[in-house]
């Protein structure tokens, strides 16, 4: 049996330990804010925090998540009041919005280690997250707004 904490709650799992965390979150816990995009860690739509670090849940097996603390977009803040979520709204970032959970989770992990990122650092940290609608310039603007750096 695998145990882990998801958004502050203790969870137990008895299925296939090779199953990616993504499908456990989505199919079993119904935490559907974490999205499927590629299944190969190429697009970032499934990004969650594992022990505070950004991780692709499509590549993180249940075995690898055992004993860890998992945070999904649903657990990032209780009412959507994380500075990034507020900035995302102020900049009207989302178009279709599908990739934005992953974008926000990736950015949130970045700001924890780099509270005042440069443009180059933002590009480096965010290039793993694809937005097919092309909202990148607003994502960059929203990250800077949340970080309080010059836009």
């Amino acid at each position, binding site marked *: 049996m695998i145990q882990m904490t998801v958004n502050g709650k203790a969870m137990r799992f008895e*299925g*296939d330990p090779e199953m990616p965390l993504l499908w456990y979150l989505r199919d079993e816990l119904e935490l559907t804010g974490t999205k499927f995009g590629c299944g190969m860690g190429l697009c970032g739509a499934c990004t969650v925090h594992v022990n505070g670090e950004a991780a692709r849940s499509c590549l993180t097996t249940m075995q690898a998540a055992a004993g860890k603390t998992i945070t999904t977009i649903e657990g990032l803040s209780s009412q959507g009041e994380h500075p990034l979520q507020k900035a995302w709204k102020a900049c009207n970032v989302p178009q279709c919005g599908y*990739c934005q959970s992953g974008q926000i989770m990736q950015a949130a992990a970045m700001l924890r280690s780099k509270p005042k990122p440069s443009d180059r650092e933002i590009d*480096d940290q965010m*290039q793993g997250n694809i937005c097919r609608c092309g909202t990148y310039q607003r994502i960059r603007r929203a990250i800077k707004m949340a970080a309080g750096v010059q836009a």
Partner: protein
Amino acid sequence: MTAPHEVSRRGFLGRIFSAGALVIAAPLATKLGAQPDATSADGKVWQPGVYLGIEPDGTVKIVAHRSEMGTGCRTGLPMIVADELEADWARVQVIQAAGDAKYGSQDTDGSCSVRDFYDALRAAGASARTMLENTAAAKWGVPAEECAGQNHFVVHAKSGRKLAYGDLVAAASAAPAPARNDIRFKSPSQFRYIGKDMAIVDLDGLVTGKAAFGIDARMPGMVYAAIERPPVMGSALKTCDDAAAKLVKGVKQVVMLDLAKPPYGFQALGGAAVIADNSWAALQGRKKLKVEWDLGEHAGYESAAYRKTMLDTARQPGRVARETGNVDAEFAKGGKIVEASYYTPMLAHVAMEPPAAVAEFKDGKVTAWAATQNPQAVQETVAHALGIHKEDVLCHVTLLGGGFGRKSKPDYVAEAALLSKQVGKPVKIVWSREDDIRFDYFHSPAALYMKAAVDEKGRPSAWLQRSVFPPIAMLFNANEQYGGFQLGMGWTDLPYVIPNLRVENGPAKAQVRIGWLRSVSNIYHAFGVQTFTDELAAAAGRDRVEYLLELIGQPRIIDFAKEGVKQGGPDNPKYPFDTGRLRKVIELAAQQSGWANKKAGNGRALGIAAHRSFLTYVAAVAEVEVHGGEIRIPRVDVVIDAGRVINPDRVKAQFEGAAVFGASIALMGEITAAGGQIQQSNFDRYPVARMNEAPVETHVRIVESDAAPAGVGEPGVPPIAPAICNAVFAAAGKRIRELPIKKQLS
């Protein structure tokens, strides 16, 4: 079931509106002509269609009948109703419509949601407000003209009295709807929401993970499916050994789906389906299937050889779609000739949400929740596949995680419905990224041939252009090889003043399913025309902007019938091609980008392209830096004239996004085939622009206009690739005649 939106069953009015609600039926514009004239007094245009309701507590419910895939129409369309209604936006609830013919076309493509429904939605809101004003006037015993709806109240200014909308609902609902001529419309200067930046209604849900997409829809007791589909279009199944698949933990059964037959249309492709307890088990089970196929007639499809054939075809006479003067006689005079061939590859849509749906077949009826651009096509396709009436197919529409044309084709919803019938439970289908890319309805590859006879200043006296591409019409007639309506997309509507002009189209037989992708044929047509224009200007040593304006000529309204268009031309008199508007966006884009002052140097330069599509005029200036095989796009300037726009911030967002979409096409997009099979399957080999590759900043300017609203979802795409390619030539001297650029530079 967990309902992504509030609409939860057919005949939903009884559910979403309480018994005391005032329900307004508005005239409905349909996409394919038969469009009621908003100024007509003909009573026949009043028909059931778009609904809004006002609850006795004052809550206004507006039905969004088009699909939200990121364009903002789920906010923009209700803004139009709310504006004319003088509703307080904070008290508006947007209800997503299920598929139903009573709404007119719900096919959310062709960039037409606003332009096809603007008049009808204004009439719906204004009609309701007129009724409320009339009702208040009768209560007060004053002329209705002295009463005005204002932000959820009817106000009588002379006496200072006012009544809340909710308090007027009971009496207003008993009054007759006003005749067409008696509806009091607002003047544009009175608009409260139209033309103002408004946050989209789903914004909170999208930043908290609560918004529901097709992939998130659930039905009680549902099972998950993964399908092994025919690897080559038209393959026949020889054998399927499912023993190992059935041993995978969580796999319940393996069932066979009939294979699609040409013409493929929107049919489910068929194949072997693994049914399981969860997505992962279904995918693991599918890997264990041992399926043998007879690959069939398209197994010989090699995209490299196909490219060469198309380029050769483009050098042969084709069908004439437009002709004025005598091109051949002019070419024979022995003057200077410039000619070039161009090629653009197949593309896949790769919306971030792959095709996804859940469906249940029960008691002879189907209920589905789907990320679809066209719920009525779901009804028709599912009904045909299952042999039931389309009225017995209820299709709820979720949010779409991108669409770009892919989700207009409901083959994946048909898969879920067919499987549900076989297994007796609701079935959830989510395409893997590999499924999405390998079994897409591909944007066609295209070959173009351009030829001009020019004088010493580069002015063309004769111009021949010929395009060759497998047409979308192959979906409905497997043997169709000519472009048809696609020729009206940036080809027959060439806006240049040239005395001798011929526009042609040559044949190409489709080897895969071909479909429409954001801006469709405008992509390659604009690439050919705008790159060739740049080549002519370069050959004559002319400034590109000045030369482009010279070809377009003085401001005029083009009558394409008089200018030789035989087929595929624009024909909507409400939106004549006005070259003055095209000139203006070009001039403004040049100005905004600093065209006159920024000189090329150090591998950095500007390039321009302009194109009208979906009735909107767009000019784009791209600034690029080229260093060896590396290309960077620090800035794009886009100026558009889309007539009146509803939500300017969302319109700007569409053009910012289109610059990124266009950059993907220009820089890196290419789908290839070998042995009839698609060679790419995920973002590793089919890359799209990432943050560090996309244009860094796109500056969008919207020309103020009170002209009829035009499209905004697609027209930003076509000028981007040629603008980038023209900038690459200016920066590095490398002429790009074939996409993607990265393949040419490396």
